């Protein structure tokens, strides 16, 4: 079952009245998201991530292509679809004078909650997002992290089947980011929620997402699980060695070694296949009398994949 089925979506923005300039934000993007999955949209600034997210969330209408979300066509059936989804932004804004409880209550009413049911939901979300101490604080007096927690609480008020998170941990302290990430993972695990998020933090995407789509210049360049992407990009595996003597100039010339670099006392050799090349490397080092004090083998970081794709 698909939560999102978008095909050949295009969107162009026009600016200026007299000599309008056109900017293609999406150029034929297709994306499918299975129900219950967490999918990350990654890409450099201006790649089209937020535009795609906004189209999926019915905030923007596409120029062409078809978009079906939770079985509803976003253009024709947006009103019914809105009851079933929600969104939190990394740069949230709400009415400045309203207090935390009132903001959640306002959106709760819009989603059909009232009386005891509304009060219970507001209480639950305030507790869940650790906002109890700030329940009566006006929005304008909250810190960035607290504002983001209010946005998250608001986005859960209708217990959505599909949640869009636009840079959910932007500007948060590391400890708060960890808690937010844990919470996002819990939402999927406990409620089976489908989540689509955009992020600039590769670690976040690697940790949370079942699948990642890399967007650049309005097109999806690659998609797959974090592991698949790393293999797809063929960046190679990294064998990090701590050697005695520390410098071995001939190492880069060894067959299968793509490049070598010294990083904080370690020699990092990028090889085409770690499993195949590690025994050869160790044999060669032993033959030359080089002592291997420590070894680490790792796949490339998602960040390296991102840099490669964004290049």
């Amino acid at each position, binding site marked *: 079952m698909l939560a999102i089925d978008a095909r050949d979506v295009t969107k162009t923005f026009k600016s200026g009245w007299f000599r309008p300039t056109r900017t293609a934000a999406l150029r034929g993007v297709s994306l499918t998201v299975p129900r219950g999955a967490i999918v990350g949209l990654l890409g450099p600034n201006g790649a089209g991530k937020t535009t795609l997210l906004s189209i999926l969330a019915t905030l*923007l209408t596409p120029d062409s292509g078809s978009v079906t979300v939770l079985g509803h066509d976003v253009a024709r059936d947006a*009103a019914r679809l809105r009851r079933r989804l929600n969104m939190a932004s990394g*740069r949230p*804004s709400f*009415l400045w004078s309203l207090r935390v409880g009132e903001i959640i209550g306002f*959106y709760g*009413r*819009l*989603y059909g909650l009232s009386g005891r049911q509304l009060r219970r939901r507001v209480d639950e979300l305030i507790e869940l997002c650790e906002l109890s101490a700030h329940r009566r604080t006006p929005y304008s007096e909250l810190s960035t992290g607290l504002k983001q927690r209010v946005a998250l609480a608001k986005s859960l008020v209708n217990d959505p089947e599909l949640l869009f998170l636009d840079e959910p941990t932007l500007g948060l302290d590391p400890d708060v980011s960890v808690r937010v990430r844990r919470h996002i993972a819990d939402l999927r695990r406990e409620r089976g929620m489908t989540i689509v998020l955009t992020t600039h933090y590769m670690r976040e995407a690697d940790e949370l997402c079942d699948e990642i789509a890399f967007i650049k210049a309005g097109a999806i360049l690659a998609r797959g699980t974090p592991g698949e992407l790393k293999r797809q990009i063929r960046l190679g595996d990294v064998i990090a060695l701590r050697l005695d003597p520390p410098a071995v100039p001939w190492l880069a010339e060894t067959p299968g070694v793509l490049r070598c670099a010294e990083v904080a006392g370690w020699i990092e050799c990028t090889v085409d296949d770690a499993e195949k090349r590690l025994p050869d490397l160790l044999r060669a080092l032993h033959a030359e009398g080089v002592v291997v004090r420590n070894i680490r083998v790792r796949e490339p970081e998602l960040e390296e994949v991102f840099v490669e794709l964004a290049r």
Partner: protein
Amino acid sequence: MSWRAELLAVWAVVVRNALMASRNVFFFFELLFWPIVGVLSIGLMTRFLHLTPEQASFVLIGTIALSVVNVCQLEVAYAVLLDVWSKSLKHQFLAPIGIRHLTLGSWLVGMARGGALFLLLAALGWWAFDFRVLAPGWLPVAVFVLGCFLNAWIVGVFVCALITLFGNRAEAFAWASVNLVLVLAGLYYPVSVLPEPVATVAAAIPLTYFLDAYRAHFGFAPEFRAPIAAGLALSAVYAALAHWCFFAALQRARRTGLLLKMSE
């Protein structure tokens, strides 16, 4: 959408606008300061000019109508303006809310504020200038106030449409156009004194008819036949048109991305 969900969405807007209104000094000035200053200065001017009690009533009815319409239409415009100022427009339109909920909810708060203001100004006019605004009885007063509220609703929804269409840039134009409409409606003078083409425009404004009908109770000959029916019919047409404009502007904002730009 069920009736319950419809009412809840309207109530959500009522609560939100009422809370915002109760917490901002700015709203206090709108509700009390400027309207009181308006009635006092116009009332004193009628004394200085030695106007007859009838003429003074004529002018003061216009002053009170201006204040009531202004306060109520501002509240209707807040349906969009509050979210534009706080950059939360996208959250509002991501939720299952229709423009009918927004305009109706904010209009209800506007009517409460406008009603309170009307009573306050009526009391002030009576105390300061012996002007008995409630003298015609509760039904004519109710029809007159309803006429003011309907006009405020229409103007407020048009302002919402303009802001949704052009963004913040439209704010100043929106306020200016409101005052132009009110001036043409014959607030301080009968529309018969207006030049012919302008008088035709005045005849297309619903408030003109409600003012005309109410002033008839103070001894002024009505300028229109069946002014209340005409005012109500025109109001219905303009209300439908204003809502269609707002809807079309919102659709356009979703197409052009202005909805997102106003939330950044």
